[in-house]
């Protein structure tokens, strides 16, 4: 192994009310993949944003390829050969794929843009990554996972020597993840240094050489991956042993409380029928784009339905708007927290109170602030949301803590059915268990839980019954006893025999 190509020493960074990084050091060698691990809010993204010049550090030093760097910004980082794939998508929706890939370093001839050449080059890069994307399509027309792949292509196209990937796989399909790992291994062999951030610890074995762990903004330890175990990593991350990864609660299944019949809504929700019984968790598995999110949105009234019936406790309910669903006792924690989950400019308190105002207003619509406060305090405590006080903006929370708020705001209600869409996406192990516990608690109270997830282990670990979706249809209903990763995957790939529209 070669010399260090990145040396961060004693880096500190504070945000209002939070010390995000406290004297953290990090070294990266050429040709190695370093996994940067830690709970939500540990400071991983912040550290990488400092390395790539998005944030400036409050104190500390930075050496790149042995040279001291004092002024770092996105342009300087690019020139130094540092590329970063951010945790959140950072693309221009109105520009084409090629325009996005070459943004900031456009190819020009005598000052005139050479779009043909850029399209050509983009096409080469995309196909070298086995991505079937037309470089001339407008980015906003692609699915989230395709957009994520474009972002990866963009980072790779800079021929960076130092590559940072902040949760690149959270929006990818398993096939895309495989391709990404192939690429990572190739780059590693070519001598790139890669920092890899992920909460999916099972991925690490395929690519990682070394792990480094942060907790609460502090450096905990780093070690060679082969000398450690996932169990040990988790222990370092949370500072305690996590004994049971998927706590399962057994409860006798009661009567049928919820039923969907022949639901149709757009091309990703076709003839969906299923039922839900008191005290059970139904998992919905499937590949990206299978239509799970769309199904949940259609049930909840967030998108228009074409046809279908929804029955609660034996009674048909008319749901045209989310408020109809909420009143009928159905609630949804959506998958995209920034876009659909949170009012980021409002306080945590406002966010938690928002869907529950009906429970704290008098007939004139006046809000009882005492009840509001009580509810907030309770939710913060139950979910262990870490914040300065409940009046800070939701924006300032780390990704994982934001997710907890999205889930938390629904728990104060006495709902009949709670739908979780990817509730653990981008959440650390400790918090994941907390969310599983919440689902179990709801189940114990006799509430029906629908749990959409792309992660097989948790679907298998938590659900009592699993619906598998592909191409907008339910292709199979599996009892937990008969479900395995293989059987789920088999049904999840049972596509309609039609050309995929993205390719056409």
């Amino acid at each position, binding site marked *: 192994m070669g010399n260090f190509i990145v040396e961060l020493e004693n880096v500190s960074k504070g945000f*209002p009310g939070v010390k995000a990084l406290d004297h953290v050091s990090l070294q990266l060698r050429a040709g190695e993949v370093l996994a940067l691990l830690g709970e939500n809010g540990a400071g991983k993204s912040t550290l990488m944003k400092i390395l790539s010049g998005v944030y400036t550090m409050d104190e500390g030093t930075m050496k790149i390829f042995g040279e001291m760097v004092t002024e770092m910004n996105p342009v300087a980082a690019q020139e130094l050969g540092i590329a970063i794939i951010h945790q959140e998508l950072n693309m221009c929706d109105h520009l084409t794929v090629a325009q996005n890939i070459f943004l900031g370093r456009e190819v020009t001839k005598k000052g005139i843009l050479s779009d043909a050449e850029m399209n050509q080059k983009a096409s080469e890069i995309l196909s070298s990554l086995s991505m079937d994307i037309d470089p001339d399509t407008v980015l906003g027309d692609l699915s989230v996972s395709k957009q994520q792949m474009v972002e990866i292509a963009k980072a790779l196209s800079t021929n960076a020597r130092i590559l940072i990937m902040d949760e690149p796989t959270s929006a990818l399909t398993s096939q895309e993840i495989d391709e990404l790992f192939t690429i990572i291994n190739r780059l590693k062999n070519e001598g790139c240094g890669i920092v890899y951030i992920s909460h999916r610890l099972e991925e690490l074995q395929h690519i990682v050489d070394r792990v480094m762990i942060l907790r609460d903004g502090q450096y905990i330890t780093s070690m060679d991956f082969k000398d450690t175990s996932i169990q040990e990593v988790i222990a370092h991350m949370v500072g305690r042993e996590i004994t049971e990864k998927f706590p399962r609660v057994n409860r006798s299944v009661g009567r049928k409380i919820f039923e969907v019949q022949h639901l149709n809504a757009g091309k990703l929700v076709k003839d969906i029928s299923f039922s839900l019984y008191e005290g059970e968790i139904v998992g919905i598995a499937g590949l990206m784009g299978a239509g799970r999110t769309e199904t949940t949105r259609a049930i909840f009234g967030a998108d228009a339905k074409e046809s279908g019936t929804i029955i609660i406790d034996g009674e048909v309910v008319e749901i045209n708007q989310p408020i109809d669903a909420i009143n009928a006792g159905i609630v949804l924690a959506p998958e995209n927290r920034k876009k659909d*989950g*949170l*009012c980021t400019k*409002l306080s945590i308190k406002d966010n938690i109170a928002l869907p529950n105002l009906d429970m704290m207003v008098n007939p004139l*619509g006046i809000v009882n602030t005492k009840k509001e406060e009580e509810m907030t305090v309770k939710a913060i405590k139950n979910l262990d949301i870490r914040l300065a006080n409940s*009046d800070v903006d939701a924006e300032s929370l780390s990704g994982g803590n934001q997710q907890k708020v999205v889930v938390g705001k629904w728990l104060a209600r006495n709902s009949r059915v709670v739908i979780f869409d990817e509730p653990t996406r981008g959440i650390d192990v400790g918090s994941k268990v907390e969310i599983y516990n919440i689902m179990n608690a709801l189940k114990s109270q006799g509430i029906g839980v629908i749990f959409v997830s792309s992660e097989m282990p948790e679907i298998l670990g938590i659900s009592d019954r699993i619906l598998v979706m592909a191409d907008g249809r339910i292709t199979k209903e599996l009892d937990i006893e008969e479900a395995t990763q293989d059987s789920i995957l088999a049904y999840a790939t049972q596509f309609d025999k039609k050309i995929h529209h993205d390719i056409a």
Partner: protein
Amino acid sequence: MGNKDLGKKMLKVFSKRGMGQVITASVGLVVLVVVFGILNPNFFSSRNVSNLLRQIAPIILIGIGQSYVLITGNIDLSIGSVVGMSCMISATLMTKGMSPWLAVGFTYVAALAMGILNGQLVSKAKLPPFIATLGTMTIARGIAQIVNNNYNTDSIGAGAEGFRELFYYGKTAGLFNTIWIALGLWLVFNFILSKTRTGRHIYAVGSNAHAAHLSGVNIAQTVTKAYLVSAVCAATVGLIMTAISGMGTMDAGTTYELYAVAASVIGGVSTLGGQGILLGTIVGASIWGVLQNGLQFAGAPVAIRNIVIGVIVIISVLLDIVLRANNRKNKKGKAAA
């Protein structure tokens, strides 16, 4: 302990939406008042004070309306035209012999219709609010011109004296009625915004309409409500205009929508939505009114007046931004220490 509690309470007040800017602006207002007080010995005469307050009242009213709309993340450019339309409709009806109070009723109905149109265009038809209300701005001005056949109306006559007293010339408890009207509406709308479900929804929609929708908020209804408040405020100002001049003027209220934005923003309401309080709107409107009054007395030509006002609009918002950044730095210092 009581002390600590107080401190905590104070901290909460300060960290409230846009409170920082309200405080900065209030300090600015005090400075302005002091400066003008020194420049012009008449400034603090009870006559000028009550006069000044009456001049500020309409700005507060349109400011309230614009603030509501801005907080939902939209804008209402039609305010000035709705003022003109209301002025012309009420005056035309009165000159045609309708009882003033009935005319007032009709005026509010017309303004509310305009508010609903705005709300529906923005929230249902999904027009960009700038465009939708640019359109209704022109339409409402057209209506103002058409109701009396492209002429200002004649005098609304002696039968409307009571109306004129109520909206402008009369006093109650030593203060002009106009001030009471502004204060009354402010109290009502401030209460709605800060204490009721509708208010919460308005903030939520402005912060993130998607998230609000998924939390069961009816976006279209909420946005329409905000435009209705704006229309009610504009109509009230239109009626005040009729009362002031005792006739209908087609141009009444021209560019008031911009004053309204200025008052709101100087008072800390964000044009991006989700942020601001009506207390700030009062301060912003007062700064605007004091400037107009004070500069006129100071004998400043309109040119200078324009430049000073422009500079103050910019500086007031700039100051807020700088202070906020500093605040952050200070906190950082503390956190690091």
